[in-house]
């Protein structure tokens, strides 16, 4: 299934075993040398985040495995297949920060089981807390995740407080995505040169992606950074179709010729990779209906705290639905989408606006077809998942 593009298997098959101890400065130095970026969505430099942390018994380490975007599978796959590597990374960071407080926040039941078992299997993880939750999309946002761990409602707070100042229980907290911790464990074992032996210069190493829809092999893959996106999307040059980069807070694009799987380059191109979802629609499904379905899902994921998001996202979803059925103008939708960014406690309205705005600018032919005929004649095949995630298929 996966012979068509070059995958590597570093994270998903990493041998268990505690990586050598590194102090905070060493770990910061390593992360700096390989330009490690957080793998949750924001892509923040890990070295900067780690260097800002105080040390001591009160410090908290939070491993965010809440992965609540239905299209994303990479975090649960990693936790199910390599739970010890995730724990290695978490304990490595905890030791470097002179603390034993580690909390892993998990959404997926299979991942919860794997991690709980892994904690019991080792002698150095007795203080690791695995917290399972069933929250929605924005509950995965790091400050919402912290509140959830603290037993408060899992919604982003109104004031911008950074976790390294006040996180779990009000203590300074190093919080990052599960894949970030696994990458740190690998980095510590391999050293900077070994880690950077594969991948691009701008972001060495590998990255996990979730491939969705009409792609070379749907499911979770680990690829070297710098891989041309075209390698994952065969036939795109002769039959260009809308490609979604960065999941449901990401962007649609149809010309991918110059794009590579690498966070800095994609960000520069205005196409942030976010949590690593890459999707392409087939020619058999109604692309506009797929967009309407995701827009409706995004509207339903508003925590309901912020008016512009709570009222704006459903209105935008209704506008998109009207286009699907032949509304002649995109003016209402354009105006409402333009008002979303920057008007919420978290980036949910910003991300949703990005998804919808780029969908309409990429799918002009589809929108025109619907404007003229009220339909494109293709059925909605639900290629973009909006419900509970299906069973994991992965690349190992």
């Amino acid at each position, binding site marked *: 299934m996966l012979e068509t593009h070059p995958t590597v298997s570093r994270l998903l098959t990493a041998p268990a075993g505690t990586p050598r101890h590194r102090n905070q400065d060493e770990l910061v130095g390593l992360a700096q040398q390989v330009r490690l970026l957080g793998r949750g969505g924001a892509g923040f430099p890990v070295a900067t985040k780690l260097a800002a942390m105080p040390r001591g018994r009160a410090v908290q380490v939070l491993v965010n495995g809440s992965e609540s975007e239905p299209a994303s599978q990479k975090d649960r796959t990693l936790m199910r297949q390599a739970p010890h590597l995730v724990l290695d990374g978490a304990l490595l960071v905890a030791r470097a920060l002179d603390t034993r407080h580690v909390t892993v926040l998990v959404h997926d039941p299979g991942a919860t089981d794997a991690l709980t078992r892994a904690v019991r299997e080792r002698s150095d993880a007795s203080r690791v807390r695995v917290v399972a939750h069933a929250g929605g999309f924005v509950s995965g946002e790091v400050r919402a995740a912290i509140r959830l761990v603290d037993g408060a409602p899992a*919604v982003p707070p*109104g004031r911008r407080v950074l976790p390294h100042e006040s996180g779990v229980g009000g203590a300074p907290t190093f919080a990052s995505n599960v894949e970030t911790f696994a990458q740190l464990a690998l980095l510590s074992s391999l050293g900077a040169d070994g880690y950077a032996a594969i991948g691009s210069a701008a972001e060495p190493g590998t990255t996990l992606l979730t491939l969705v829809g009409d792609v070379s092999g749907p499911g979770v893959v680990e690829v070297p950074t710098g891989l041309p996106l075209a390698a994952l999307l065969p036939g795109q040059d002769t039959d260009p179709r809308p490609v979604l980069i960065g999941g449901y807070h990401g962007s649609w694009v149809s010309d991918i010729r110059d794009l590579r799987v690498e966070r800095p380059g994609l960000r520069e191109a205005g196409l942030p990779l976010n949590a690593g979802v890459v999707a392409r629609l087939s020619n058999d499904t109604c692309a506009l209906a797929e967009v309407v379905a995701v827009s409706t899902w995004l509207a339903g994921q508003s925590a309901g*705290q*912020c*008016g512009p998001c709570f009222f*704006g996202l459903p209105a935008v979803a209704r506008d998109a639905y009207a286009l699907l059925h032949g509304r002649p103008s995109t003016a209402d939708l354009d105006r409402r989408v333009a*008002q979303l960014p920057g*008007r919420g*406690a978290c980036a949910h309205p910003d991300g949703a606006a990005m998804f919808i705005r780029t969908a309409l600018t990429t799918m002009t032919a589809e929108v025109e077809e619907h404007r003229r005929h009220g339909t494109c004649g293709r059925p909605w095949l639900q290629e973009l998942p909006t419900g509970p995630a299906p069973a994991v298929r992965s690349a190992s």
Partner: protein
Amino acid sequence: MRIEVDWTRCDGHGLCARLLPEKVGLDEWGFPVIDTPEIGDDLVPHARRAVGACPALALRLVPG
């Protein structure tokens, strides 16, 4: 100075748009739309009045 909205508190009462129309408009649901949050010296007293009048304590004037 700059005005900032705590969106989790704002209930769209709209007093800010009345007291600081130079900076604050309202969307179709009555929530503030602020295109440029920077407040020049001449507007600072008006901005302070808007901050003080917000029934939800959602508006802040912050340095920067």
